[in-house]
């Protein structure tokens, strides 16, 4: 059976692989055969992904017979999958012979996962090594290894698009006739010989274990911005990887990169849209190992395979995602308008640090958007946690994807590129926002939280590195009453890494929740709640991830308006309610969150309004200097402490205010964070911070409590 063409997408064309499967175990052989045949019928058709289409499967339980068949006709097979332990011939021997004589890709199969054997397979030239029991997604992934190897080979020989994209998914815009398949395969086979030395490396490059020898494309905000721009310009329907690539006009970027990125984004979107619990769980584990976009593909494939109760092709997912993009773009425009209306001076306002908040390229392959998506769909996701019922994705209307109250948050969506910003919903929406925000990334937590706002998990908090003001803890302020105050913005525009890793070990992300708390609920009551909440969720203020890498700030330093948002490294436990310092002009507290420059401004205004610079400085300390010995931790400790302690004085004080804080720091127009920090350091030196209560150890929030 030869696959004639691809369903649905003219850009793709399948490469029908003729596979020879060898295994002495009849059960496994039967399973393998069926899996392979399944690859014929279920090939993903998507311009972004490779497709493993099997055109024929031949099976034998004897290695000698296999060898005979291979030798009979040189071009009879495109791929050999062989068991390692066979009675009549060792699998490795077969591998050698096949490799030597035929230069066919061979995949080893074994119930034994002993790494030594795996190495043996690799050194003998196996294309890959599968461990029984095999799953269909593994086969599909392997195919990518095989194809890529060929692709690399062919690339070396031929620069044309046809060649480089000659693997199934790549035929964008040009449909290489299937008939040419054999030729291509033959060519590939020959080329493979030439690049034998490289094959190992190539294989490793595409290992799904995340280790890569070649540098892979890192999707920085800039790059992502371009990506989004391209998508927007092309229009939702026409945004295919090839066109996106052309439009992006980035040197060194390949169509493959773009395709992968697109996939990853869609994948993340899928993750966080309402899904049955099972799928969600699957993604949870898969995403943890999201070492590369190859894994993303694996996830997507697995996703399809595991969709027991509904079929959700990638294509449909892509459509859905595009619809979502559409919707987001309208929301983003609205947000932009609002922002403009509120007189936000700096476009930085729109920055959403959240993307970088994840900061973990590995886990999300740099798809910040995904992170955003995370935050944006929390409700949906959470909602789904409790309803494991099967959902037919096709029936999901676009509206289910985006929670209305969170839609604004999603302006951070792709469309906004650097302008992503999360708009804080109005106070009455806070609860949902909280809930929504919660899922940040600890999917485990999500799973267990069942929708309850449990912010403890966010210590990695990639998403919310908002500068929640520590003051939020104590003060019942409604700092950011204005709808524009966007706690999420606090997150931190990822634009500028803090100078010199100032944030060093401070990984406590700004939690938007806390921000939220502060924002949404100015009353004392709230504050109480927050405090309670924080009691409930003591967090280490600074989690492992280097703060600086996650909190790049963009340059909102020029924003002199009083910024209500106080950036604070707060333990994720946002519920601890970081109350925002009460600014008289709450309106101005637009969130330049995450802007270090803003911090000083905020600090200034805060101190102006509050008791003085001391507390602000304290906060600044914490915020700015992970390395600063006393301040930050003190502040942190303070927070924690305050939280656990009586609330009383917080009303007046910023929670973080320390009576003993150096008070000499007057609000000044620090030109840069550096200046501020330097000043603080200096102050520190000058003063003794005799705060016995603050144990400056690890800034652990918990310790403070």
């Amino acid at each position, binding site marked *: 059976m030869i696959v004639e063409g691809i369903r649905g997408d003219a850009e793709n064309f399948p490469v029908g692989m003729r596979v020879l499967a060898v295994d*002495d*175990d*009849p*059960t*496994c052989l*039967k*399973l393998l055969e*069926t*899996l392979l*045949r*399944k690859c014929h*019928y279920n090939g993903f058709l998507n311009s972004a992904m490779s497709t493993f289409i099997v055109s024929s499967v031949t099976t034998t339980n004897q290695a000698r017979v296999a060898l005979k068949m291979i030798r009979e006709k040189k071009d009879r097979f495109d791929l050999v999958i062989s*068991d390692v*332990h066979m*009675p009549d011939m060792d699998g490795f021997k077969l591998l050698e012979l096949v490799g030597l004589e035929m230069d066919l890709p061979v995949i080893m199969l*074994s*119930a*034994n996962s002993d790494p030594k054997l795996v190495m043996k397979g690799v050194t003998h030239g196996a294309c890959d090594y599968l461990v*029984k*029991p*095999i*799953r*269909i997604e593994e086969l599909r992934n392997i195919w990518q290894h095989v194809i890529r190897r060929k692709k690399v080979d062919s690339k070396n020989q031929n620069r044309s698009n046809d060649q480089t994209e000659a693997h199934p998914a790549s035929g964008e815009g040009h449909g290489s006739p299937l008939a040419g398949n054999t030729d291509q395969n033959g060519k590939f086979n020959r080329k493979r010989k030439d690049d034998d030395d490289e094959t190992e490396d190539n294989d490793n490059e595409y290992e799904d274990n995340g280790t890569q020898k070649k540098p892979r494309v890192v999707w920085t905000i800039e790059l992502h911005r371009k990506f989004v721009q391209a998508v927007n310009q092309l229009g939702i329907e026409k945004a295919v990887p090839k066109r996106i690539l052309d439009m992006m006009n980035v040197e060194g970027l390949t169509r493959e990169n773009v395709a992968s990125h697109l996939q990853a984004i869609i994948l993340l979107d899928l993750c966080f849209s309402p899904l049955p619990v*099972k799928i969600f769980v699957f993604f949870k584990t898969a995403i943890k190992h999201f070492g590369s976009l190859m894994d993303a593909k694996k996830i997507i494939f697995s996703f399809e*395979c595991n969709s*027991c*109760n509904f079929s959700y092709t990638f294509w449909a997912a892509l459509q859905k995602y595009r619809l979502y993009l559409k919707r987001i773009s309208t929301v983003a425009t609205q947000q932009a308008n609002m922002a403009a209306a509120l007189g936000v001076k700096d476009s930085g306002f729109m920055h959403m640090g959240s993307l970088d908040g994840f900061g973990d390229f590995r886990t999300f392959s740099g798809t910040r958007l995904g992170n955003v998506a995370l935050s944006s769909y929390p409700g949906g996701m959470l909602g789904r946690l409790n309803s494991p019922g099967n959902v037919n994705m096709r029936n999901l209307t676009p509206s289910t994807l985006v929670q209305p109250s969170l839609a604004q948050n999603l302006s951070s969506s792709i469309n906004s590129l650097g302008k992503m910003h999360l708009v804080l919903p109005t106070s009455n929406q806070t609860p949902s926002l909280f809930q929504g925000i919660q899922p940040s990334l600890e999917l485990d937590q999500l799973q267990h939280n069942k929708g309850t706002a449990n912010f403890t998990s966010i210590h990695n908090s990639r998403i919310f590195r908002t500068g929640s003001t520590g003051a939020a803890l104590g003060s019942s302020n409604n700092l950011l009453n204005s709808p524009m105050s966007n706690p999420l913005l606090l997150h931190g525009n990822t634009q500028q890494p803090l100078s010199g890793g100032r944030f060093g070990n401070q990984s406590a992300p700004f939690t938007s929740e806390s921000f939220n708390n502060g924002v949404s609920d100015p009353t004392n009551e709230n504050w109480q709640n927050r405090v309670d909440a924080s009691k409930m969720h003591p967090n280490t203020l600074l989690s492992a991830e280097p703060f600086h890498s996650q909190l790049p700030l963009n340059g909102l330093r020029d924003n002199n308006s009083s910024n209500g948002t106080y950036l604070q490294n707060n333990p994720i436990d946002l519920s601890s309610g970081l109350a925002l310092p009460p600014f008289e002009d709450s309106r101005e507290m637009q969130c330049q969150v995450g802007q270090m420059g803003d911090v000083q401004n905020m600090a200034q205004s805060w101190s102006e309004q509050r008791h003085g610079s001391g507390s602000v400085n304290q906060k600044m300390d914490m915020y700015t200097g992970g390395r600063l010995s006393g301040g930050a931790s003190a502040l942190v400790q303070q927070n924690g402490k305050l939280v656990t302690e009586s609330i009383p004085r917080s009303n007046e004080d910023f929670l973080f205010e320390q009576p003993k804080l150096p008070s000499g720091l007057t609000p000044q127009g620090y030109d840069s964070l550096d200046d501020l920090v330097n000043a603080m350091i200096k102050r520190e030196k000058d003063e003794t911070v005799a705060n016995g209560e603050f144990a400056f150890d690890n800034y652990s929030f918990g310790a403070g409590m």
Partner: protein
Amino acid sequence: MEIGGEYLEILGSSILMTDYLEYSNALFREGLLDGQFIQLQMLRDDSNPDFVVEVVTLFFEDSQRILNELSKTLDEQNVDFKKIDANVHQLKGSSSSIGAQRVRNACIAFRSFCDAQDVESYGFCFFVLFPDQMCLRCLQQVKQEYLLVKNKLEALLRLEQQIVAAGGVVPTLNDVS
């Protein structure tokens, strides 16, 4: 009446389906089957409706053969541990492909004993002095697990047949593990 008949049919198959789900869930819970079995179920489709039955049948036949082999080998004067290892390895592979988790685990345990014989790594006198005994024990364990899962699978597949005969659809399993 016609309506009544249909209703009864639906009811009947519904009951069967519920039984099926409960039964299969119990199997998963007890570790007799794992996610791989679900994978098998998913491979079943219109073009391949008997896939699961076929594969499971193959598994039974092959396993029986291997178990017989193992018994024979262990009965010999000089036990050929390499042969035992190879057989157990194969059984491990096929049981894992089916999703027969406990059989697979028993095989793993079995193999570790065999390895011990070869490398004499065990410090336990009992093992060293009575390797055959240990292997026999292991074999027994494997056999037990195999027979257990065989019975259960057969019952499960029978239920499937009944469901289909009653006009119902075999529910897709979810991995409850």
